[in-house]
């Protein structure tokens, strides 16, 4: 996929795009580092017997779901790195909307993520509005879902982003 124009939208609504496999398995060390960074003493993440009792073994904090997809800062032989939420940038380009903001971010949690899991993600464009004018400028709202599955095909989370791509008042179309 690349620039998404008005004529492309109907054909890709609801279609999974940009499937990506996490560069590494979910790991306990990052779970502890994250809990440590926010002083999260939930025994679910620190005491194996509590994890066994509550979740049948260790899990990752649910809000960490996107952590498993941030690429290494450097990797051998890598020449390009995809932008997170590539569909958002494709819409900006295809609809010729040079500015954009994200207004809301919702995460819905499903099956727990466990150390050793290898997650897969894809992006789905859910909607694009008619042209609207806000105090920022004139443009369109869109909703993009990012779905995460584990290696068994279980849905683990869905993130929904509402974006507004726009032109400021003085910006010409195509400028």
């Amino acid at each position: 996929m690349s620039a998404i124009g008005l004529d492309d939208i109907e054909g890709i609504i609801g279609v999974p795009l940009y499937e990506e496999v996490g560069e590494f398995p979910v790991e306990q060390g990052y779970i502890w580092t994250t809990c440590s960074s926010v002083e999260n003493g939930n025994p679910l993440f620190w005491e194996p017997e509590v994890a066994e009792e509550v979740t049948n073994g260790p899990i990752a904090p649910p809000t960490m779901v996107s952590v498993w997809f941030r690429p290494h800062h450097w990797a051998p032989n890598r020449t390009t790195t995809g932008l997170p939420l590539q569909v958002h940038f494709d819409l900006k380009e295809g609809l010729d909307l040079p500015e954009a903001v994200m207004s809301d971010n919702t995460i819905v949690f499903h099956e727990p993520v466990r150390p050793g899991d290898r997650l897969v993600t894809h992006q789905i464009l859910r909607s694009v509005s008619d042209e609207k004018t806000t105090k920022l400028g004139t443009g369109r709202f869109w909703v993009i879902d990012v779905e995460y599955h584990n290696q068994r095909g279980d849905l683990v989370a869905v993130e929904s982003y509402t974006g507004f791509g726009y032109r400021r008042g003085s910006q010409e179309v195509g400028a």
Partner: protein
Amino acid sequence: MTTPTLLHGQVAVGDELAELAYPVTATTIVLGALAARDWRPMHHDKDFAVNRNGTQDIFINTPNLAAWFERYLTDWTGPYGRLQRVTFRMLGSIFPGDTMVFRGAVTEVGVDATGCAWAALDISVSVDGDTKTTCAARVALPVTADDNPWDRRGDRWTP
């Protein structure tokens, strides 16, 4: 269930969570960014943050703020509390030297068609009275000491 936890029947609309105040340092922000694998310089390089981003300093990244909200919620529920959904709205940044203050209150309680009990909350983090991020959250809670929301899968988990 031997681990202490909050039961659904102990929660009512209007209940307020204990306030959490935390003094933010550069270490708080850098540690959080690296824990979230967020290598972008505005979360560790003050010169970049000030001169390229135009902010007053480095600032907490959003994924780490999500981890702070999760910690705040599960400090209240205990380990049997299972997050169903969170919606964030970012309004401002949090910098070294700020004391961030988390507050939350229960806005709704209910039981879904599968028998899963839940509480909805409005949570915010503020600095000097200015709200920096809001979080609307819904968390599943046990109904009884024998109930465990984490046991729910497939059709029995409708977050």
